[in-house]
Structures are given as structure tokens and as C-alpha cells.
């Protein structure tokens, strides 16, 4: 599922800044990065390349569910 998990985040926000597709946001309560919009991950690895803590796990399988209906998910 593309970007899979973030562990041991130090809160530097670099991944939020460099994600080309706005997948990541900060969790204001914990001050750690959060996978907010996984469907939009393009598996480009920029977030993990730039992560100082090597905290991000990415798998090569496509994220996102098939949008079968035309109603809001």
C-alpha cells in the first residue's frame, strides 16, 4: 500500500514539505508526521530519502482503493 507507516518520527516536518502530492501532514497533538492522504502516494520515495530518522516504510504496491461508486467515500 505505498507509504505504509511512520515510526520514531522526530517532528522535523521535512517529509511534509517535500512530498509532491501532499500525502503527509503533521499531527498537532503529537507533533509527528501523519499519513493523511495515502491514496495520493506516488511511491516516489522522496519522503524516505529525506527523512533523517529513516522512519518511513514504503512498499512498492499501489495505494488507493478503486472508487466504484460516484458518491463521496
Amino acid at each position, binding site marked *: 500500500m505505498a507509504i505504509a507507516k511512520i515510526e520514531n518520527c522526530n517532528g522535523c516536518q521535512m517529509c511534509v514539505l517535500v512530498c509532491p*502530492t501532499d500525502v503527509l501532514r503533521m499531527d498537532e497533538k503529537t507533533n509527528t508526521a501523519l499519513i493523511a492522504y495515502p491514496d495520493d502516494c506516488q*511511491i516516489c520515495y522522496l519522503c524516505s530519502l529525506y527523512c533523517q530518522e529513516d522512519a518511513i516504510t514504503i512498499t512498492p504496491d499501489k495505494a488507493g482503493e478503486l472508487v466504484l461508486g460516484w458518491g463521496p467515500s
Partner: protein
Amino acid sequence: MTKAVPSEIETDVLVIGGGIAGIFAAITAQQKGLEVTLVDKGSPGNSGATPFADTFVVFDEERGHKRQDWIDTVAFNGEYLNNRAFLDLLMDQSKARFQDLQDWGVLGEVKFGLVLRKHVIRNKVNVIERVMMTTLLKKEERVIGAAGFALQDGQPVTITAKATIMCAGAGGFKPTGFPIRSLTHDGDAMAYRVGAEITGKEWIDAHGTPANKPAAGRTQWNLNPHGIFMTGQPKHGARALNLDKEIEVHMGGLPPLAGPPPYAFGALPDGSQVPPPENLPKHQMVGGSSAGLAVHKAEGIFPQNNTCASNIPGLFAAGDGLGSMLCGTLYAGIGFSFSGSSVQGAKAGEEAADYAQKADLVKISQLDTAALNNSMFEPMERESAITAAWVTQILQNAMIPYYVLYVKEQSRMEAALTNVEFMRDHLVPKMIARDPHELRLVHETENMVLNAEMKLRASLYRTESRGSHYREDFPARDDKEWLAWIKIKSSEDGMELLKHPIPESWRPDTSVPYEERYPARFPGELEFRAGQKAA
């Protein structure tokens, strides 16, 4: 690090998009003494196609390159529709721009995006990050800035500028496998809506992706461990990124196996050769991974000359969003795109700075700002069930199959066009957004639908085959009718398409027999020509 954005900004030069073209544009304009604002959907250096670049072609007579060889080779590979003025610019400037990257500390650095970002900030460019521009502001037939919103909190942002440089790249239909899902032709769409001429939509980029992990093309390529490096020269008859895969599949076969490139990859700053990427055994590739994208530099705002100016005063463009036709109908070889964007960015920065020095700042009224914001934020107020994710998915289903935009034919394209027109008229106006992220998706999807319509109309209009444009119903080059570029313009009746002939002196030598002039064959081509002769 992600900070709040002011809602109203005034600047001399506005640069939209922070890939390598936008960075060179911003720094060049700033060095001419102007106040420059660079706005990006993400962050400069890490934006668009730039973070995935590795090669930079340098023309260098000291390394034995011959000007006429390059002119002839690129024209031959690009099947004569390349724009020689922009090749001249590349040959004149690529060495100096590569030296700039060296001076800035970019070379040899895998995370070079961060080096570029630091450099642009250090050069006192006002950098606005994570803000999507949706609309160019126009007053008295002149572009006077742009408006958009912040992704973090949805705050509106209006930027008025004496000159605007569009460097928002090209795009695709958010395909899988090629990292261009942030690129949705936003620049073309904004420019088209204010009357700019758009070109190059019929040319097709045919990047593939590994069949076993089609969504993760980057794992196979790896992130290049060398950073940016220099490449040599275009190769005669290279036919880079042609339609082999798609045509083979259409004929009932398998796409050819891919492996490490058979040529020397390039040179590192110390002069040593770069080895081909490791861990790249022969593997099955599949197509469609860059669907919606044209050949690098082929599509975008139509340049009025080699100064990167559009037909609308105050609007300039550079990089993949400028239809410079640097390479023509097929890619000239690795390194041309990054190098081309760099030299064009610097050129556009210089020209826009000259324009801004003589222009005044036009303010936009509060009333106009309010109307603009209403239309930009309308998807957040709508009562509807249509999501951008769904419209994107059906657009992909309509446009990505190989038999629509790769192997083309009139009735299939007309069917797709009917579908796309329905999306344009009945789905785009109903898309909803429940937060600023979804608002971005709505605007991106609207721009992708516009690009789909442009691609289909341009492909229907060009009744020949050439380079990366293959029509089964017109499978031969037509030098009599089609030594011309197509320009698309907004008119009262919808999209207007025009032919723009290339300069007489760039036309191929028609005394050379056709099969020598164009040695690469399309399926059905010779039979089609024989039929024409018989008729």
C-alpha cells in the same frame, strides 16, 4: 518549517513552479535587481519532475562537439519539427548553466533538491511553499499576477506582479509508475484560460514501468546515487521513448524487454564515467506510466520567439510547460530535459526582468478578489456527490488505454472525446472538496480534463503520423501539409486549432527520397503511401 502565508503579495516578478526552470528563472531575475516571488504547490527543488532528474546534457566544443552535427541529429530524430532557436539557446548556454549547478554545490549530491531550495532562499527570493495557484490575473490584455490557496489551511493567496513566469511543468493523468502525479498541466490550463496559445499536445511520452511492480517505477530505477551528472551528445537515429511497446502490444505481441542502457551513461564532475544503474536485469516493461505527458519540451505555452514570451503581455514560460519543441516529435536523448529547462529558466528570468523594469504594478480590486475567491472555493460549498478521485479514475480509464492516445484512430478518439466532453460539462462543474487537499485535487482534475480534450483534438487535427504521433488511419508523414506545429486557443466556440508552419529553412530536403528522409517505419505506412500513389 511549514509557515503561514500572507494573503496578499506584491512583487516585481512572479515565478509559478519551483522545478529547475523556476529556480533558474527566479535567481536570474533577482540578480537583475528585481524583487522576485516564487510560489510552489510543494517546495522548490523538490517539485515537479526535478527531484527525479539525473542527467544534464552539455554542448561543449572543447569536448569535440560540432554545432552542425547537433543541429542535424536533433532535427533528424525530432522529424524536423524541433525548434532550432531553442536548440541554439541550449548549445549557447548549457555549459554555463551546468557550471552554475557546480558552483551552487548541486552536483554529486543525491538530495540536491534541498541544496537548490537553500540556494534560492539564500538569494533573497521570496519563497512561498505549499500554495497552489489556480488562476492567472489579467487586466487590460496583460497578465498582472496570479491567485491560489494554501494547502495547509485553505487560505486564499493573491500575488500581483509586473511580470509572471510560468514554470509549472507539464503533467499527466496521474498515471502510476512515473513520478508525475503532482503534475497536472496547471500552467497550460491557467494560461489557456487567459487566452494564451498552447502547443504540442499530440506528441506522446512513452515511458514504461516494470511489469512486476508497475506502480513503483522508482524502485527499479533507484534514486540515482550520483546526483546530477553530465551527458554527452544526441545519437543519430536514437528514437528515444518511441511507441515500440504500444505498437507491439497492439499487434498482439509483448513489449520488448528493457535492461541497462547500451550506451555510456555520462560523466561525473571529475571526468570519470558513470556506470549504468545497478540491479537492473533485463525485465518486462509495460506502458502507460507517463500517460498524459507529451515529449519533454514539446507541449505547453507556445513561445512567440526564443525569448520565452507568450502571446499575452506579461506572461513568460520556461521548462516542460513551455512548448519550446527543443527536441521535436521524439526525445533527443537523456539529459536534454533538465538542461533545456535550466537554460530556458535563465532566459525567461532575464526577459521577464527586462519587461518588469519597464512595466507598472497593476492592483486588483477587492471586488475582483472576492469574485475570484468565490469561484476558486466553490467546490467547498457544493452539494453534490462527485469527488475528484472518481472523476480522475474515469478519466484514466478513458485516456490511458494504448488504443486511444498511443495507437490512434479517428473513431476511437472521437469516442473518447465524447466521454471527455461529458466530464467537462457535467462532472467538472459538480466536483466537491471537503478540505484544502481535496480542493487541490478538484483543480488538478479540472486541468487534467482540459489537457485530455486538447490531446484528443490536436491528435485528431494532425492527419499524419510522425515521431511519437501514430495514426493507424494516416500512417505516413505528410510533409506537404504537416511541417507545422499546432496551436490551441480558447475561442467563443470552444477550442480553436491553428496550424503554424515551421520556418522554410528548417524543412527537410525533399529531394531525398521519403524512405531515406524517414527511415523509421510505422505499421501500414508503405502500403498507405502505395495506395495514395495509385489514387
